[in-house]
């Protein structure tokens, strides 16, 4: 039972002042992406580009039911089955995929818990024959009724957080307002589908693949094959996007490829096409939130009662941490004297939901932000004004018990966003229901893993001198299109005091690079970047001013490695689920302007303005890229990305009918950074990866409500729904 108000931490000393970039040579500069030229000239090698003469092509036989038992598998007689490699559950040394838990089988062993669950793997030199062969296998099932709705099945994970006397606040409140908010699943649509190539040599396994987290794959392989650390090498190939979709899912795929390779004694390619990737891989968790708030007549918030429910799918995967990140963002950037936060994730017979940019926070922030706008309308108040009256400040306590020890500056971000978008004029001019709408969202996003996550990760970063007088950064943090390969050399060059052209980035492979943790959670630039900064500082000290080339010639490679140390004073209590959820937050205001065709209800997001504090900007062009890409993804989630679920499966697993915005549909996106640096982030940086995904949804749905004089509380909000 959480005990309200018991956990308190002391306010930390003010953050040390940090340079804002004027005296810096590489940090704060838009250095050209190091891997950019290879990508635009086609030189970059993605996993499917790797030539593997004599390799086998693998394919997965998947369940066509959502829940039940496998009765019989029959192989049609017209296929020379002895020429194929066929793997089933009995071939897996330990038939479990290790993630947070290990409940998920690598291959079904009789029981089916979701559509498209892998049952058999099959490989052959001729990919065409593999296709034919797969279709010549019949599986007979004993069907059982499945569970497809949030709240109907077993609880996968639950958190309860309380702060202050919320019961009393609700009883005494002048105004109590409540609403229910729903968000749909979302597919990542990374430009490169998932794929792995596996081969074994002398009991040692090497896998090449598209991924975000080489050490997650490493851990899962080690577990399933009962291997030692040094028997496995996981090599990341150039990766065409991830957005969370290549955080947990590649572990499954890598084991599959390795199983086929082991049984056949050959190199095996297992590369999904788009339809298989969309049907079988993870998606954003759908959510239902119930929000009840107490406030005064003039809109001063007194208490929140937030109940957050998400669909976890058939296995645990990363759902507990998605749920956690969701609930610790649910209260938004506001001051609440009292709060009751309740979060539950449920099992269903959907393919497991997984990581997706924002990791639960976009879902809970959609609810609180849509709610704040609805509450303002209920009070007859401007939604910007309601927010302004309630922003959190330094010294205030969040419902998690975390005392804010930075300046959120939400007022300044808000003022600037309203000014840039000419919010006041437009709001006054555009009548409700007149086809045009303008609305906003104000929000924050934590940097790094939640709670004690970073402590458990204990990330390590290495840096080594090179023969040519430069340095090489060694991390397992991957370049997935966001700029790791460029910003780390920027940070290292700055800290070492050598030219950026002399700093290279070692392609992550687990045999070579230390484990700097997964490439997730808005942690790479800020948290891992700080370790790069420290490692480079240490190397610089060791070199003591010596010329690197000469030093190398005399002593060989000089290598330094550092490990994460938590910021002093940060406390998190895993049992009570209270404390400092994050070392720092990024803060943001979005204003969305929309036009809706009054006859067809076709929406258009005309402009999306974002004012942003993500701390020091290491590379302005890349930071803009993160903001614009995340906002475009948010526009898609809000207006058109409709995952049609049938028995838990994404029925429209095709780009023909899963509509994502093109560059012609993405709004005019206006981004202005207003940095307040963070001492524990690399050169003062905070997280920027996930934040942009949080705000567009609620701002757009609220603006559409204004344009259509409606009261929708869900997304995606499709034209056909507005027509009704």
């Amino acid at each position, binding site marked *: 039972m959480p005990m309200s108000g018991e956990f308190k931490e002391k306010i930390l000393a003010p953050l040390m002042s940090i340079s804002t970039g004027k005296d810096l040579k590489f940090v704060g500069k838009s250095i050209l992406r190091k891997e950019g030229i290879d990508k635009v000239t086609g030189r970059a090698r993605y996993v499917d580009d790797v030539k593997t003469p004599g390799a086998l092509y693998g394919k997965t036989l998947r369940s066509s039911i959502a829940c039940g038992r496998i009765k019989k598998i029959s192989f049609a007689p017209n296929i020379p089955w002895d020429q194929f490699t066929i793997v089933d559950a009995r071939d897996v040394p330990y038939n479990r995929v290790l993630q947070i838990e290990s409940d998920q089988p690598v291959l079904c062993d009789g029981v089916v818990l979701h559509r498209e669950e892998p049952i058999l793997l099959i490989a052959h030199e001729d990919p*065409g024959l593999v296709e034919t062969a797969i279709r010549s296998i019949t599986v007979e099932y004993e069907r059982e009724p499945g569970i497809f709705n949030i709240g109907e099945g077993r609880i996968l994970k639950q958190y309860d957080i309380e702060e202050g006397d919320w019961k009393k606040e609700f009883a005494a409140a002048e105004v109590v307002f409540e609403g229910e908010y729903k968000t749909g699943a979302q597919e990542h649509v990374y430009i490169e589908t998932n794929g792995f190539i596996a081969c074994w040599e002398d009991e040692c396994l090497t896998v090449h693949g598209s991924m975000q987290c080489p050490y997650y794959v490493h851990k899962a392989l080690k577990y399933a094959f009962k291997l030692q650390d040094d028997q496995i090498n996981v090599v990341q190939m150039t990766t065409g996007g991830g957005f969370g979709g290549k955080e947990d899912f590649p572990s499954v795929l890598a084991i599959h490829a390795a199983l086929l390779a082991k049984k056949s004694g050959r190199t095996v390619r297992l590369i999904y096409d788009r339809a298989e990737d969309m049907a079988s891989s993870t998606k954003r968790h759908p959510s239902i939130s119930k929000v009840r708030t107490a406030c005064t007549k003039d809109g001063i918030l007194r208490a929140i009662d937030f109940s957050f429910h998400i669909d976890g799918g058939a296995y645990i995967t990363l759902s507990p941490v998605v749920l956690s990140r969701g609930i610790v963002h649910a209260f938004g950037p506001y001051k609440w004297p009292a709060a009751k936060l309740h979060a539950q994730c449920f099992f269903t017979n959907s393919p497991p939901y997984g990581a997706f940019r924002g990791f639960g926070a976009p879902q809970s922030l959609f609810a609180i932000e849509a709610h704040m706008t609805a509450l303002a309308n209920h009070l007859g108040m401007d939604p910007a004004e309601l927010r302004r009256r309630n922003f959190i400040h330094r010294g205030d306590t969040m419902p998690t018990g975390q005392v804010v020890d930075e300046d959120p500056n939400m007022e300044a971000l808000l003022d600037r966003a309203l000014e840039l978008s000419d919010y006041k004029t437009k709001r006054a001019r555009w009548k409700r229901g007149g086809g045009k709408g303008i609305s906003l969202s104000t929000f924050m996003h934590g940097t790094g893993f939640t709670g004690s996550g970073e402590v458990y990760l204990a990330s390590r970063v290495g840096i080594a001198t090179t023969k040519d007088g430069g340095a090489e950064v060694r991390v397992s943090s991957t370049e997935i299109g966001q700029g790791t390969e460029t910003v780390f050399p920027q940070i290292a060059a700055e800290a070492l005091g050598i030219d950026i052209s002399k700093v290279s980035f070692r392609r992550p492979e687990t045999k070579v690079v230390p484990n700097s943790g997964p490439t997730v959670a808005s942690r790479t630039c800020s948290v891992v970047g700080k370790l790069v900064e420290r490692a480079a500082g240490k190397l610089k000290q060791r070199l003591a001013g010596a010329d690197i080339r000469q030093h190398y010639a005399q002593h060989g490679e000089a290598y330094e490695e550092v490990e994460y140390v938590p910021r002093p004073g940060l406390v998190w209590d895993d049992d009570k689920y209270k404390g400092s959820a994050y070392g720092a937050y990024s803060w943001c205001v979005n204003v969305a302007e929309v036009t809706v065709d009054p006859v067809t209800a076709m929406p258009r997001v005309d402009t999306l303005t974002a004012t942003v504090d993500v701390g020091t900007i290491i590379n302005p062009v890349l930071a803009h890229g993160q903001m614009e890409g995340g906002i475009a993804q948010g526009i898609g989630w809000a207006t058109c990305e409709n995952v049609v679920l049938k028995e838990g499966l994404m*029925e*429209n697993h095709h780009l023909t009918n899963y509509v994502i915005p093109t560059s012609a549909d993405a709004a005019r996106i206006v981004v202005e950074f207003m940095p307040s640096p963070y001492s524990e982030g690399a050169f003062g940086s905070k997280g920027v990866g996930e934040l942009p995904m949080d705000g567009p949804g609620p701002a757009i749905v609220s603006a559409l409500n204004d344009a259509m004089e409606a009261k929708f509380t869900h997304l995606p909000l499709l034209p056909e729904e507005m027509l009704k």
Partner: protein
Amino acid sequence: MRSFGYAEAENAQGLAAALGKGYRIKAGGIDLLDMMKERIDKSERIVSITGMTELRGIKERDGGVAIGALTTLNEIARDETLRKAFPALPDTVCNAATPQVREVATIAGNILQRPRCWFFRQAEYNCLRKSGQACYAVAGDNTYHSIYPMGACHITHPSNIAPALVAVGAQIIASDGKNPKSYDIRDFFLTPEQDLKRENKLPQNEFITEIFLPKMPEKSAYVEVKEKQSFDWPLAACVATYADKKWSIILAHVAPVPLRATLAENVVGEKADIDENLALQAAEAAVKTAQPMAYNGFRVHLAKAVVRRALLKACGKDFHA
């Protein structure tokens, strides 16, 4: 890996000979290669016709306009003559697909492209249009399917340019290498009721050489509603033309064929100038026979909107609301 034979035709005789041996024509290849990659089209022999330059270009002839079969969508979009005489025609293609696709996609390939029904487009669904027994759209996600039932299969016709050609009664000129053939585009396309496996009458041994538009309309307009502004087919579109005291109102992307809205044409009659009220009545008549499926009812509303707007636009009127 599946391999296939590839040839290049230099002239009509060569092409006819190749077709005689069962070769399939590749023009721009946008649709054909896509279908082959998805293993839906199992052609074993392909003949490219892009070298037959005589099939390319737009010419005025006999009071009309002849468009060579290999003329690309962008050549049509940029053509000055068409832009002046029949603006709806370039309008149908100037925003179709993507700029890259429009540079290679040809007019003949466009009207012959296969349906976009996503069950049809996936090898794993053996639907009626392939050799299967069921139309998966009936119980499945049918958001993008036909709202006018015309048989057991519920595709929509994917061509943007076909409705403009139907509106002016274009002739499709084809050849079997020896004799020219001519098809009236108004009965060129086949509904699923007429044929479940084919969308038009062109026999395998013939190829299109040109599309002939006998007469330019006095008024014309094209209006579409799209979900994505690029990289996508419309949800509904309409071409309206006026010539010889007659309106042609053709709906696209809502039925298995470019659909002539005869009821709507009857409503507007001979009237050259159409007001808001009449346009609305015509629009209502156009959707009278619509029978949407479970998920696509909203597209009836869109069909109505494009008919009304196309008529008003053709009369030079603003159609905002």
